[in-house]
């Protein structure tokens, strides 16, 4: 037995030597730690996202990436107050009937390969988005444009089929980032994967799928919009957008400085990050809206009394407090207040407050004194699941017994398309009133009109708003739409989550923009 012991000691000793070696190498690694992302001489800002885009082509990307914002400029920009301001177009004249838009283009702008930007790039970009062969998800946004005419190198004329003031928004949207005319032919099938050609403040360097997108500053950039304090090149060298799917890993990276900027901070982490001395947390109202919807063409949801009862049964304050730790606002209307021009100020006043007694009374009036049984569908992410559970309990209070059904996102869409839903939970994220067209016009039935709301009056109100001759009239008419939707209780709006952005303090001159981070506007990083 002695020898046995001796042997095992030798073996185990050998193993320990190996482990010690590993530990030694580990320590060595720590000592010579030099993350490739944070090289000393280059100034790099790292932002984390939860997933990779499908393609880095603004007009084709279905899974949007922030990189697209910085690679391209758009004809129209949005300033810190979210107003529409000149971008690549220095100005635009709209005819009185709203049918002809003349845009004057900025001079001295070049693409990342040095080619000057002219009217033909604008025409190419818009024509290509509209071309059915491109299969752009955004083709519908520009359907009002009948033709783009080149007047001269720096003037284009857009002829519209009908007045469409929202073109302002659609031309300022990421999808409308101006790309170089003929880039598909020039770069072939790897356009959007290995090359991207825009005029933006950052240029494409590398995309390692599932890992990172690296952008370098455009040293020639001097055509930033007038409202920026720095209209020239960005002050730092590289912008790295990393894909980190796991939420806790993203947060840990932020706290340890591996990541400097994190969008969409989860509410449960907000308090902790707020107390962190190295991090600034910017909290703003988002342009999202979470709601409970129902198949309005099915019994009993075809009865407005039942729909109002559901609206009265939901305690929004409790949901905001317990599911979102207070980092959300109760919603009573159909648009988020961040859409200053179009939002109906009286939404809360006109909307339905929490009142279970009233809900029961309405149900009784509709012929359901004992309530009814139904299903409640949701996606199986943690927030939707918890929301569904709370809603289930609140609805049960007034006698509506809902069975929860959970789906992954592809199956959820398939289920909604097939019209199998009763009650269901949704969240939209969109900074424009045309989201109501998207979800509620009868032409959108059965999907995305998943609340199965086909109503001539709604169609009429929305269409008249969308084709109003001016932006102001459009805004007024969308208020009428919202008022009517509240009256009809088409959805049960619940919450507007806060938009939370965490930025490490090494990142200086950071200004919070309501839509996207303006990295070229004087933002810099100080390395310790």
């Amino acid at each position, binding site marked *: 037995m002695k*020898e*046995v*012991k*001796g*042997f*095992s000691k*030798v*073996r*185990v000793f050998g*193993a320990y030597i*190996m*482990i010690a070696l590993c530990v030694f190498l*580990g*320590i060595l*690694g*720590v000592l010579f730690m030099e*993350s*490739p*992302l944070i090289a000393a001489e280059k100034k790099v800002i790292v932002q984390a996202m939860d*997933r990779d885009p*499908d*393609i880095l082509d603004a007009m*084709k990307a*279905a*899974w949007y990436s922030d990189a697209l914002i910085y690679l391209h400029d758009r004809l129209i920009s949005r300033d810190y107050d979210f107003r529409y301001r000149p971008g690549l177009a220095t100005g635009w004249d709209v005819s009185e009937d709203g049918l002809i838009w003349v845009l004057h283009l900025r001079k001295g702008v070049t693409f990342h390969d040095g080619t000057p930007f002219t009217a033909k790039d604008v025409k190419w970009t818009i024509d290509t988005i509209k071309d*059915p062969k491109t*299969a*752009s*998800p955004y*083709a*519908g946004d520009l359907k009002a444009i009948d033709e783009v005419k080149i007047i001269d190198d720096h003037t284009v004329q857009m002829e519209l089929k009908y007045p469409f003031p929202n073109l302002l928004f659609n031309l300022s949207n990421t999808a409308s980032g101006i790309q170089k005319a003929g880039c598909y032919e020039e770069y072939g*099938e790897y356009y*959007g*994967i290995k090359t991207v050609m825009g005029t933006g403040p950052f240029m494409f360097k590398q995309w*390692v*799928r*599932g*890992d*990172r997108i690296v952008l370098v500053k455009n040293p020639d950039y001097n055509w930033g919009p007038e409202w920026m304090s720095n209209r020239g090149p960005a002050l730092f060298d590289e912008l790295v957008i*990393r*894909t*980190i*799917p*796991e939420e*806790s*890993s993203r947060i*840990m*990276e932020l*706290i*340890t400085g*591996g990541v400097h900027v994190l969008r969409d901070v989860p509410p449960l982490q907000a308090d902790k990050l707020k107390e962190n001395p190295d991090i600034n947390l910017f909290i703003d109202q988002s342009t999202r809206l979470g709601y409970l919807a129902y198949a309005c063409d099915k019994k009993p949801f075809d009865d407005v009394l039942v729909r109002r009862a559901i609206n009265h049964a939901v305690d929004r304050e409790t949901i905001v407090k317990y599911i979102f730790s207070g980092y959300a606002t109760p919603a009573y209307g159909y648009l988020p207040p961040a859409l200053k021009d179009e939002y109906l100020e009286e939404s809360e006043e006109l909307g339905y407050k929490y009142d279970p007694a009233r809900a029961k009374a309405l149900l009784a009036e509709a012929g359901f004194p004992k309530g009814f049984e139904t299903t409640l569908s949701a996606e199986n992410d943690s927030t939707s699941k918890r929301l569904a559970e709370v809603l289930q309990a609140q609805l049960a209070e007034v006698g509506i017994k809902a069975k929860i059904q959970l789906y*992954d996102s*592809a*199956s959820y*869409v*398939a289920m909604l*398309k*097939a019209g199998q839903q009763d009650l269901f939970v949704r969240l939209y994220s969109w900074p424009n009133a045309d989201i109501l067209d*998207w979800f509620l016009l009868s032409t*959108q039935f059965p999907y995305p009109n998943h609340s199965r709301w086909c109503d001539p009056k709604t169609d009429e109100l929305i269409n008249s708003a969308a084709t109003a001759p001016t932006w102001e009239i459009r805004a007024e008419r969308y208020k009428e739409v919202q008022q009517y939707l509240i009256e009809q209780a088409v959805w049960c709006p619940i919450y507007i989550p806060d938009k939370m952005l965490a930025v490490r303090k090494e990142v200086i001159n950071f200004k919070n923009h309501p839509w996207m981070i303006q990295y070229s506007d004087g933002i810099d990083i100080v390395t310790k």
Partner: protein
Amino acid sequence: MLRYFVRRMAFLVLTLLGATIVIFSMLHLAPGDPIDLIVGPNVTPEVRENIRHQYGLDRPLAVQYLSFMKSLLHGDLGNSIIQHKPVSELIAERFFVTLELSLTALFISFLISIPIGIKAALKRNTVTDYALMALSLIGISMPTFWFGLMLLYIVAFKLRFFPISGYGTWRHLFLPALTIGITDAALLARMVRSSMLEVIRQDYIRTARSKGLPERVVINRHALRNALIPIITLLGLRIGGVVGGSVVVEIVFARPGLGRLMVDSILARDYPVVQGVMVVLTTCIILGNLLADILYAVVDPRIKLK
């Protein structure tokens, strides 16, 4: 020997055939439509049909399967619907990220489990044995997801010895490999222990001892060699499970590997990519098992490949 290989290869083809049929039908039976994810609902039905046609999704399932198999025989895995790139390229980009992780994890698990297993076997029914086996039980019971996050939290986040996520250098590789390595080692240590115990009771060990061989030689040359069988089994499984075993770890540590590609593609109903990954995966499993079978024969000449 040659006949054995021919038979195994034929078996590989048959298994692949079966696997592709199962995968193909299961994928297409699941609700959801990849077209929704690429074009969104606001396009005309003509455009949708156009794209559906472009990817051949408008044909009957059987025809789609046959054309998939035909391309496969030409070595072509088709194009990703979502990522606009050939599937083979997507897999090639990620395969080595995952292989690197799996092999390092395998190495770590051997490094830990073999000494522990032997030690526990030789000290059978002592405190050392119980302690080591209790440790291994804890290791088996820990969910990889949780263990990975804990390692991340303590070693990378609190102690800052290693980067938290990403990939590229060996420092990015260490923690994810350790996560899988330790989890595997826990199971393997028990396997090594039990097979070691079985072997040292054998007659030939007694013979070896009685003819006066030093104990070290007895254990090293006679016992360990026979006790290696379970280790080889794990080797085969691990090589086969390159993808499966590392999905969770790849998500936690943000490594752009094959496992994540597969999960993302399943969620997006990106049929060609899922099929492609599954073909690679099935091939790996079969080859891994084949490798294990060959190694059995190398280690133990009594095992013949028939």
